[in-house]
């Protein structure tokens, strides 16, 4: 029986009269991969923000490795050893790739170890040729890859990715899949995603959001064939 | 009893003054997300336009309500074409450039008009309430402010231009999507904003002595009022002007005018700490 690394109980977030996240109970085991899907406005991004501390939930609790972290700031959550990638690319455009990664490494390592860590990550993500280039000058796929490097450099035990495959070429997505598979040997991973192709290629368990609440939670194949899900999500999409 | 009436009038007057001095800045900020730090100097120029016109024998009300706004509006148009339009989308840079403009205008006014305090006298006599004399011109300013707000509401709600303006305030890319040239909208907005600044300066000119550096006194208060008001143009203007004006006067009467000003500034800090996006980001959401 694996340890539970993330748990929410009755997590609720209201904006004025709108309930974006409604009584969500959620559990994630160590080294588990979970995809969150759902139509636009289903509440998956709000859920993501409540968990990562970008938003403070109206009601309910968030636990990480058994400790309550409800309402913590993002930097406090990240300090626990949680890697977070937001929806839009969040990188330092006028710093170089290696400087970006160094900053992330420095949070968990000494200066000397950080330098070593940077070399290791650049090697692992095959970023060697662009290591000294400013991020602002890179293509979208490369920047996404660098951001993934930032997220994983601290050896997190939980990784939260909001739409990692958005706007990527097929080749980039393929590479991303490999990286995620490799991540799973050490961390639990949550992916918020639209791209069904991508989800099919990596996913095992999927949580479907609808109108702020969890509609269903099952293996990806079961979800895909479920009629209700097809109606609310796939049906609309098609 | 008489004193409380006087205090009430002074409070209304303080709120009205804040509305008046902030309106031009608010329009430009609300529509274009540009903080015009030369706003105070636009007011100063409105004052000088009025005084110059009156010295040429123009009726004072014509000078204040027509000549000054148009003159300053045209200066604003010139500024928009020469400077501001190159800086759209760069909030800090526009602030710095308009700051430079404000120094430039102070220098120009000094060279043209000299640094001597000038002014004109108020065209409205004072009147008596019980044992107190009240400055009749205060009422004029209150009335002008109310008309200003009403006018802005009417334009925004009732006209085609207002509709476009509201659209632009919500989404700056809306107007161009609907086929209106953003360039022309910005030009028009800056003209209107400048004209409002000119009007404010003109209307206040008879109360205060005018020197080229007069604008400095207004810009800080106007800036704070607009930013504290938040995204909704008119509701923000009224709500923050009301909070600041009333607090300012309460403390001015209870302690001294200095403490009144300090209380205003402290309130601003507290307000912004509690509501970092301004009053209307929390209340009056979605209003104008």
């Amino acid at each position, binding site marked *: 029986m694996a340890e539970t690394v993330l748990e929410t109980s009755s997590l609720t977030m209201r904006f004025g009269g709108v309930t974006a996240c409604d009584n969500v109970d959620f559990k994630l085991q160590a080294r588990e991969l979970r995809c969150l899907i759902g139509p636009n406005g289903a509440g998956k991004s709000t859920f993501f923000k409540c968990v990562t501390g970008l938003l403070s939930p109206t009601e309910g609790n968030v636990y990480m490795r058994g400790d309550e972290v409800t309402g913590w700031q993002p930097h406090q959550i990240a300090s626990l050893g949680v890697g977070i990638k937001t929806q839009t690319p969040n990188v330092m455009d006028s710093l170089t790739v290696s400087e970006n990664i160094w900053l992330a490494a420095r949070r968990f390592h000494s200066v000397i170890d950080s330098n070593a860590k940077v070399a290791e990550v650049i090697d692992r993500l095959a970023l060697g040729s662009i290591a000294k280039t400013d991020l602002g000058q890179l293509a979208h796929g490369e920047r996404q890859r660098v951001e993934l490097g930032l997220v994983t450099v601290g050896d997190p035990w939980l990784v939260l990715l909001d739409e990692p495959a958005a706007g990527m070429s097929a080749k980039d997505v393929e590479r991303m899949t490999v990286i995620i598979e490799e991540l799973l040997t050490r961390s639990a991973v949550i992916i918020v995603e639209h791209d069904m192709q991508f989800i099919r290629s990596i996913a095992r368990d999927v949580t479907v959001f609808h109108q702020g609440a969890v509609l269903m939670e099952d293996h990806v194949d079961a979800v895909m064939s479920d009629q209700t899900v097809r109606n609310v999500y796939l049906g609309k999409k098609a | 009893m008489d*004193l409380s009436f*006087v*205090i009430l009038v*002074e409070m209304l*007057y*303080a709120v009205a*003054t804040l509305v008046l001095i902030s309106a031009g800045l608010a329009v430009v900020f609300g529509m274009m997300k540009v903080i015009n730090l030369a706003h105070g100097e636009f007011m100063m120029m409105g004052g000088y336009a009025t005084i110059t016109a009156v010295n040429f024998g123009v009726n004072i009300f014509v000078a204040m309500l027509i000549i000054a706004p148009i003159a300053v509006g045209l200066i604003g148009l010139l500024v928009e074409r020469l400077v501001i339009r190159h800086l759209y989308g760069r909030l800090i840079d526009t602030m710095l450039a308009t700051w430079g403009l404000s120094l430039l205008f102070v220098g120009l006014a*000094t*060279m*043209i*008009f*000299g*640094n*001597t*305090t*000038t*002014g*004109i*006298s*108020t065209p*409205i*006599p*004072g*009147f*008596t309430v019980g*044992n*107190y*004399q*009240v*400055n*009749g*011109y*205060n009422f004029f300013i209150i009335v002008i402010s109310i008309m200003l707000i009403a006018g802005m509401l009417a334009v925004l709600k009732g006209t085609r231009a207002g509709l476009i303006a509201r659209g632009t305030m919500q989404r700056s890319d809306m107007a161009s999507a609907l086929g209106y040239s953003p360039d022309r909208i910005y030009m028009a907005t800056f003209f209107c904003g400048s004209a409002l600044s000119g009007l404010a300066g003109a209307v206040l000119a*008879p*109360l*205060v*002595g005018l*020197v080229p*550096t*007069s604008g400095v*006194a207004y810009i800080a208060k106007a800036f704070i009022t607009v930013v504290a008001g938040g995204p909704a143009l008119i509701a923000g203007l009224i709500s923050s002007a009301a909070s600041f004006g009333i607090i300012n*006067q309460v403390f*001015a*009467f209870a302690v*001294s*005018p*200095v403490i*009144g000003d300090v209380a205003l500034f402290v309130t601003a800090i507290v307000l912004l700490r509690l509501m970092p996006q301004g009053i209307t980001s929390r209340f009056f959401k979605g209003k104008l």
Partner: protein
Amino acid sequence: MSLNRRNLLKSTAALSAAAMMPKVLMADGHGPIKLGSVLDTSGGFDAYGRPMDMAMRLAVEEINTGGGLLGREVEVVAYDTQSDMALYTQYAQRLTRQDQVDVVHGGILSASREAIRQTLRRSETLYFYNVLYEGGVCDRNIFINGVTPAQQVEALVPHAMANSGPRVYVIAADYNYGHNTAGWIRHYVEANGGEIVGIDFLPLDVNDFGSTIASIQTASPDLVIAPLVGGAHLSFFRQWAASGMKDRIPLASTTMGVGNEHKVLTPEEGDGIMVAYNYSQELDTPNNTSFKERWTAAYGNTDDIHEIAVSNYQGVVTWAEAVRQAGSIDRMAIIEALETGLSIEGPAGTVTVDPQTHHAILDVHLMEIRDQGMQVIETLPQRQPVDVQAVCDLGANPDDNTQYEIEI
């Protein structure tokens, strides 16, 4: 109303051209005597500073036309301090070290005077501060010829109270000058059997007097005395008139008109305000008439002449007279000449140096503002600076170097 820049430039050019002429004639190996000047001729205080600069240049031109001093020409070394206190110290250093001037005239605000006074004392450069101020400076290196609060207030208060009544309300500018003057007003009001019913201190940038005017009405005094300073405070007189108070409670002031503010107010706003100064353009004396003619010849009109411009003029004349009497430009010789109780005839009347305080004994004129002019009602000849005399005796303590807060 406003100063015509082009005229000023033209006349300044003319002045310097005139100053160039005798240079050739007077070349005697000594070179010119250097007069340093630091004044705010731009920035917020230039309404005070620019006419002072014009007056100083006029005085020097007249000295040079009359053959200079000790057979030498007087050369002006002037810096514009741009209403910035930091520039005062900077230019004072430059005047004493680089230009090595023989005397410095200048400084407008008390803060600017205090910024340079020590520098000039340390470098043993004679200093003339020619502005009305709050009093109390006691330093053998400095000579001051502006009226002090006691000289003004002692004359103004009884006169104003006689024209109104014993209950007095004071609204003063919130800085040293205002506080000191308010103290003297209280002293003389009480000495004349009156009573202070309220005192408000207003910072120099306050320009909305609604609440103040209401408080005054609540106290309902017989007289309001307003030592207010600067452009923002001018609004008080306007708002006072606009609320109709002018016809109910008489006003007096110790500062109104120093920078020609009364020419900005309309007759309806300004008429009737009681003031007391050393100078008025309306002063009907041969000296003043001739001074105004010479000023007009140099600058085109008399618009800019005001109290402290005349003080500055009289300061330069006093210094020149002392140089003549000393027969030397040695600092101590000049100081000793001045300490003989030297006096000159200026546009505002006789100005005598008070050896004990290095302040001036001068005529104070009680005046009333009428039709944008200051009509003299009564002249009180040769008033002593009794406030400074009470604390300062340079004869007994020549090394004194303080600005006293005068206990009243």
